């Protein structure tokens, strides 16, 4: 780092490292960057590593996927299978399917890499989902990070698109059924549906073009977008600093944690290998997508238990939950509301997810920057909205496995569907109220602890014969953690410059009232001092 100053004075006895560093630095000027980045602190909390899990599993997807492209042939030309798997010998199938079977049975390590690719993809999307939940529930999407929330959301959508296009490539029965559902959904859109489907498949489904097209998307366009967005997304984390939970010495202006070099980099590097190890272990032990069972795609058969990969499950579930008879003919056209309603519902849900940071900022009228992460209980309404969203998503998700729920829990399929219909509609409301109450109760408990300390479990008999439990006061560090959060109050309706109250303001005020009517304010210094003095006084006078 200090090569510039040592250059003139350094004697001949320089280590190889020093010489090499100097050589590199003289030509790249990288020391400035390392000095800046290396000293950047990264707050330590387990949930801050979830994004890294996604990143590292994406690396596995990228590397294993590259291997697979060496052997996969994205062609729908018909061939007769002549590989090692006996129950498919002599069966007509597409080259795509045959080459995937060859990867699985006749290429050394092929099956392992294929399974690694698929498991890592599942983990990639799952880690993104959990990471998004962490960001949501800690309010880490607030200014200045709203845009990065949008980039992250786009990554989530792109990851699902990557997953689905990959799922469709082997041209086995399962992937073909999945494409058929997409085809049906596209065709269900009025006016443009049929045209779009024909454009996508190059004619009537399934055609002979779709695998090649999906392959281009899967290995060229979508990965390029994902890589670019990851760069932007991670870049913004550096620019904005990482959020941190409240604690002693943690200010909105600083970032407390181990520096990237050497501690954090070493930890993250080790963590990367652990993730790769977990993926390898799972890939080596568990079968995923046994296309040899599914056989080549043929539009007539559909297997029981046909599901998409987990991340598309919510969409499949939405389709399954629609009651029969929502399709009718009007104006000589078929209107498929059994498809349109799920599409619209999912569309609204996704718009709410991506737009939430902006909605919350508008409701609060808060234009300040926020770098301290909220504890979920300290933002009860946000947490309750999140819980409602999770319940809605989980209901749709569970519906995708309605048939397996029925067989494995000895239930009727109709019963499962009806219960999940109720869950999707009523569940979010119930979850909202329960979560809000739980958050407020937890806040009350925090308040109680700050004011009166922990219950120590030590029972003392006073001279008067009375038993009391001694409360142990908090130390200052813990108290800081519990009292430092912001409490918002409902916005007041105020006339604007022209003395008018607009409808927008009224709406904002009512939403704000909904958000912040029930609230627990953090303990103030005054309250704390009062509690302490009265508590002592109490002990002194009453019990003393």
């Amino acid at each position, binding site marked *: 780092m200090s090569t510039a100053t040592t250059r003139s004075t350094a004697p001949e006895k320089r280590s190889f490292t020093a010489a090499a560093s100097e050589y590199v630095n003289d030509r790249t000027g990288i020391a400035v960057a390392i000095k800046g980045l290396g000293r950047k602190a990264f707050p*330590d*909390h*387990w949930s*801050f*590593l*979830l994004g890294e*899990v996604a990143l590292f599993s994406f690396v596995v997807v990228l590397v294993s996927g590259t291997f697979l492209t060496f052997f996969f042939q994205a062609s729908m030309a018909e061939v007769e299978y*002549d590989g090692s798997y*006996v*129950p*498919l*010998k002599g*069966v007509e199938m597409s080259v795509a399917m045959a080459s995937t079977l060859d990867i699985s*049975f006749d290429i050394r390590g092929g*099956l392992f890499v294929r*399974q690694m690719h698929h*498991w890592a993809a599942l*983990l990639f999307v*799952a880690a993104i989902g*959990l990471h998004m939940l962490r960001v949501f529930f800690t309010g880490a999407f607030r200014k200045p990070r709203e845009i990065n929330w949008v980039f992250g959301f786009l990554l989530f959508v792109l990851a699902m698109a990557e997953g689905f296009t990959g799922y469709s490539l082997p041209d086995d*029965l399962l992937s073909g059924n999945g494409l058929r559902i997409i085809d049906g959904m596209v065709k269900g859109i009025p006016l443009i549906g049929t045209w779009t489907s024909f454009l996508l498949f190059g004619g009537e489904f399934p055609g002979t073009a779709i695998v090649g097209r999906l392959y281009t998307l899967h290995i060229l366009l979508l990965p390029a977008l994902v890589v670019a967005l990851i760069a932007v997304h991670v870049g913004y984390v550096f620019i904005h600093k990482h959020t941190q939970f409240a604690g002693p010495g943690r200010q909105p202006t600083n970032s407390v944690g181990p520096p990237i070099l050497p501690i954090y980099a070493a*930890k993250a590097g080790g*963590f990367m290998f*652990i*993730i790769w190890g*977990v993926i390898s272990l*799972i890939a*080596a*032990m*568990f*079968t*995923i*997508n*046994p296309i040899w*069972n*599914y*056989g080549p795609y*043929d539009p*007539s*058969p*559909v*297997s*029981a*238990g046909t*599901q*998409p*990969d*987990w991340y598309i*499950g919510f969409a499949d579930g939405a389709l399954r939950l629609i009651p029969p008879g929502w399709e009718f003919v009007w104006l000589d056209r078929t209107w498929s509301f059994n498809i349109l309603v799920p599409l619209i519902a999912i569309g609204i849900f996704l718009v709410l997810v991506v737009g939430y940071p902006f909605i919350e900022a508008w409701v609060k009228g808060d234009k300040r920057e926020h770098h301290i992460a909220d504890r979920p209980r300290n933002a009860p309404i946000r947490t309750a909205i999140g819980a409602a969203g999770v319940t809605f998503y989980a209901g749709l998700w569970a519906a995708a*496995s*309605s*048939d*397996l729920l*029925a*067989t494995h829990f*000895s239930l*009727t*399929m*109709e*019963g499962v569907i009806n219960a999940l219909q109720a869950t999707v509609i009523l569940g979010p409301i119930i979850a909202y109220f329960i979560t809000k109450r739980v958050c407020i109760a937890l806040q009350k408990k925090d308040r109680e602890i700050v004011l009166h300390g922990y219950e120590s479990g030590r029972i003392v008999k006073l001279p008067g014969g009375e038993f009391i439990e001694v409360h142990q006061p908090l130390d200052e560090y813990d108290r800081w953690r519990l009292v430092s959060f912001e409490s918002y109050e409902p916005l007041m309706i105020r006339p604007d410059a022209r003395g008018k109250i607009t409808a927008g303001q009224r709406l904002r005020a009512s939403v704000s009232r909904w958000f912040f009517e029930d609230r627990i304010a953090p303990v103030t210094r005054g309250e704390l001092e009062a509690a302490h003095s009265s508590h002592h006084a109490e002990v002194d006078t009453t019990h003393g």
Partner: protein
Amino acid sequence: MSLDRSVTNSMPANRKKLMNRSKRRTGRRHPLATVALLALGLVFTGGAYAALSSGSVAQAEAEPTSQETIEEGKKLFQANCATCHGLDAQGNNGPSLIGVGAASVDFQVGTGRMPMQMQGPQAQVKPPQFTDEQVKQLAYYVASLGPGPDIPADHLVNGGGDAANGAELFRINCAMCHNVAGAGGALTEGKFAPALTGVSGVHIYEAMVTGPQNMPVFNDLNISPEDKRDIITYLKYVQDNRSPGGFELGSLGPVAEGLLIWIFGLGSIVAITVWITAKSN
């Protein structure tokens, strides 16, 4: 037809594989030589048998269906089945059994579905209540009441057919209820298609010809006896050859995979993140 195809298809493949393998183990010393020989033998004997036994009707093994057997069966029937099926199997609360054939009885009683444990969406499998001999006695008694499908001959159910043909037929005709790997699936109103793992070839064959519970009948014009044998061959193959990719997770598809990655994959990773960021006390 399918026999000829399987023979002609397997020949060049085997030869090619023998040539491709290392030179140390070729010809009759090849590890698969025994299997190939066995398969060829089975195919030829099976083919010859099929040709000789004049095709479609599944003949019973040469078991003496004496009057005595039938009488024993009648006694068992009247003691155990008549409450629902009537004293002369003419039907009472339960359906008439005249003309259902020996295959139907062998399936229902042999798998423990009958006598039924309780009323429900469909009869459940339980440990069989009768010995094999008693099941046969019941079967031949019912068969004596009217003509129906007979218990299939051994060569049709021993798994000596063409697995590839069977797999294709299974996917087209059976997988929509039983799942491509025979893992079972849900039907409406609490009914279900059971998993086919561990079910004997005889019972699978009998199920196809008699259509028990909610299953449709696949008669010999629909799926020929040889094709049924191929289907059984495929199911036996799936059962005897574990997945090359590791644990199958019940062959249930993406739901099981999703649960695994969320619970064990992400679960273990979250545990690791907690460990990595834990502060030393």
